[in-house]
C-alpha cells in the first residue's frame, strides 16, 4: 500500500518539471512577434526594443528558459507586464473565487447528473431512459456561454428571480474583509450573513449554468456505470435474496463508486480552465476570467503563470485521485501490486 503511494508521489517532481517546460514552450514558441501586438502598429522601433528588454524577449530561447526555471526554483512566477503585480499574488487573490464557483457548480452537476443517470440506468431502454437521454444530448450540444445568456434572459430579465449578472455582489454592496480571497468563505469568517446571502444570490446564475452543462457528462457516465452494475451477477443475487429495490440500488451504487469518483475528480480539474468563459460572462472575478483578460492583453508572464498553475492543479488532483482509489477499491489495489 505504502509502496503504491510512494510510487505515485515520486512521479510528481518529474511531471511538474515537464508541465512547467510545456507551459514555457506554449507561450514562448510563437511564429509571430507578440511585441508587435503589445506595442500596437504605430510604435517606434525604440519602444518595441524597450518592451522586448523588459520582457526579456531580447535574449534567446534557452537563456529565457533557464531564467524561467531559476525564478521557479525561487518560488516566483514573475510579475504582470502591465501592472507589475506578482503573478502568484494575483492567482492567490482570485483562486478562492473560482474555487467557490467550481464547488457550487459541481454540486449542481452531480445532483442533476445523478438524477438523470440513475433514471437512465434503472429504466434502461424504457421511456424514462429515452427522455433523460434526449435531455442530456441537448444539454451537451449547447455551448455553456450561450446557456448562460439564455438563463440571464429567462431568470433575470423575464422572471426577475436572480440579481443582475454584474459580478459577485451588487454594485453598491461592500465585500467582507479579505482573508482567503473567496467572497462566500470570507463573509462566513466575518460572520456577515447579509453579504453571504447577497453573494449566494449572485452565484445562482453562473453555478447553475456550469452545473447544467456538466451534468450531461456526469449523467452519461453514471448511466453507463450504474447500468452495468445493475446488470451484474451480484445484483441479480441480491434481487434473488428478496432484498428491497432501494437496497439493491444502493449495492449497485457501491459497486459503481470508482468510475463515479474518477469522473468527479476529472470534472473538478477540468473546471479550472472550463469555467473561464462563464466567469467573463458573469463578471465573476475569478482566476479564469483574470486569465482571459491577461491573454487578450498578451501579458506573457501572467499567461505563462496561469497555464503552469492550471497544469499543476490537474497533476495534483489526478495523483490524489489515484491514491484515493487504491484506498477505496481493493480491485485496483490488487492490479497495481
Amino acid at each position: 500500500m505504502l509502496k503504491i503511494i510512494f510510487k505515485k508521489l515520486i512521479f510528481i517532481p518529474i511531471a511538474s518539471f515537464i508541465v512547467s517546460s510545456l507551459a514555457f514552450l506554449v507561450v514562448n514558441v510563437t511564429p509571430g512577434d507578440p511585441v508587435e501586438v503589445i506595442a500596437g502598429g504605430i510604435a517606434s522601433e525604440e519602444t518595441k526594443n524597450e518592451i522586448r528588454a523588459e520582457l526579456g524577449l531580447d535574449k534567446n530561447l534557452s537563456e529565457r528558459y533557464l531564467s524561467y526555471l531559476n525564478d521557479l526554483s525561487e518560488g516566483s512566477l514573475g510579475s504582470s507586464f502591465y501592472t507589475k503585480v506578482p503573478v502568484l499574488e494575483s492567482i492567490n487573490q482570485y483562486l478562492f473565487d473560482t474555487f467557490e464557483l467550481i464547488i457550487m457548480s459541481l454540486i449542481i452537476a452531480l445532483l442533476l447528473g445523478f438524477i438523470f443517470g440513475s433514471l437512465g440506468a434503472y429504466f434502461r431502454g424504457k421511456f424514462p431512459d429515452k427522455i433523460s437521454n434526449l435531455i442530456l444530448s441537448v444539454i451537451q450540444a449547447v455551448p455553456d456561454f450561450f446557456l448562460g445568456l439564455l438563463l440571464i434572459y429567462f431568470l433575470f430579465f423575464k422572471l426577475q428571480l436572480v440579481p443582475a449578472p454584474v459580478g459577485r455582489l451588487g454594485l453598491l454592496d461592500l465585500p467582507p474583509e479579505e482573508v482567503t480571497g473567496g467572497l462566500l468563505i470570507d463573509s462566513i469568517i466575518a460572520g456577515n450573513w447579509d453579504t453571504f446571502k447577497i453573494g449566494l444570490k449572485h452565484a445562482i446564475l453562473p453555478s447553475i449554468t456550469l452545473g447544467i452543462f456538466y451534468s450531461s457528462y456526469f449523467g452519461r457516465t453514471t448511466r453507463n456505470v450504474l447500468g452495468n452494475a445493475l446488470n451484474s451477477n451480484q445484483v441479480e443475487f441480491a434481487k434473488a435474496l428478496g432484498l428491497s429495490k432501494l437496497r439493491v440500488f444502493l449495492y449497485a451504487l457501491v459497486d459503481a463508486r470508482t468510475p463515479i469518483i474518477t469522473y468527479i475528480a476529472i470534472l473538478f480539474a477540468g473546471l479550472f480552465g472550463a469555467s473561464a468563459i462563464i466567469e467573463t460572462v458573469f463578471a465573476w472575478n475569478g482566476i479564469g476570467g483574470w486569465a482571459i483578460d491577461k491573454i487578450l492583453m498578451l501579458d506573457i508572464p501572467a499567461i505563462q503563470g496561469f497555464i503552469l498553475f492550471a497544469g499543476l492543479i490537474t497533476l495534483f488532483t489526478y495523483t490524489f485521485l489515484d491514491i484515493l482509489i487504491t484506498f477505496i477499491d481493493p480491485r485496483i489495489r490488487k492490479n497495481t501490486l
Partner: protein
Amino acid sequence: MTVVKLLLNKNNIFVTFSFFILLFFSFGSFFISFPHDPYVTDIANRLLEPNETYIFGTDEVGFDVFSRTIVAGKIDLFISLSGTIVALIIGLPLGLLASEKTRRAERIMKVLDMFQAFPLLVLAIVIVAMWGNNIRNVIFAIILINVPRFTRLIRSEALTVREKRFIEVATAMGGSNSRIIFKHLMPNILGTLLAQASITTAHSIVVVAALSFIGIGVVPPEASWGSMIRAGSQYMTTGQWWTSLFPGLAILVCVLSFNTISQFILRKYESL
C-alpha cells in the same frame, strides 16, 4: 450510391435530416440570394425586433441576423471540419505507433498525458491570441487540442484489435507490419474513427464559437456564430434576445446533427 440508399431509408430519417442541415449551413449561403447583404449594416434599423423585412431582427450595428446566421456556418463549419480532418491525419499514425509495445510508444503516451493536464480551451485561446487573429491560427488551435484525443482513441482501439486471433494468425503467417496495419487493423477501427471524427467536429464548432465569443479568431465584420452571440450578449439583460438566440440555435442544431451522424456510424459498424 450506398450512402444515398442509407439516407433514403425511412428508419434513418433523423440522420438524413442532420445531413441536410449540415449541407445547408456549409453551402447554403452560396445559393441563397439574401434580401439583405450580410456584410452591410443598416444604421437606421439597429436592434430591430424580428419582423417581416428582418425575419431574425437586426443586431446592435444594424447587421441582418438572418443572413449572417447562415453565412457564418460556411466559415465555422469549414474551420471545425478541416481542423478535425488534419488532427485525424496526424493522430492516426501517432496512435498506431503508440499501440505497439515499445518504449517509444510509452514515451508518446507520457507526453500526451502531460499535455492533457492543461485546460485545452484556454490553450486554444492562448494560441490564437498570441499568434494572431486569423482563420489559419484557429484551425491550428483546433488541430492541436484534438491530436491527443485522436491518438488516445486510435491507440486504445488498435490495442483491442491487436489482441484478436486474426492478427495473431496474420503475424504467424508472416504478414509484414504494414500489411497488418493497413489490411487488418485499419478496417476494424475505421467505424469508431469516423464516429469520433464526427463528435470532434461538433466539439470544435463549440471551441471556434467560444474563441470568437471572447473576441478572437474570426472577428467582425466577418460573420461567425460566436461573435454574433457576443454582439448580443449584453442585450440579454435588457431583453433583446434575438441577436444571440439565432446563432446559438444554429450551433445547437449543427452540434446535434454531428452527434446524430456519429451515433449512426457507430450503429452501422457495430451491426456489421
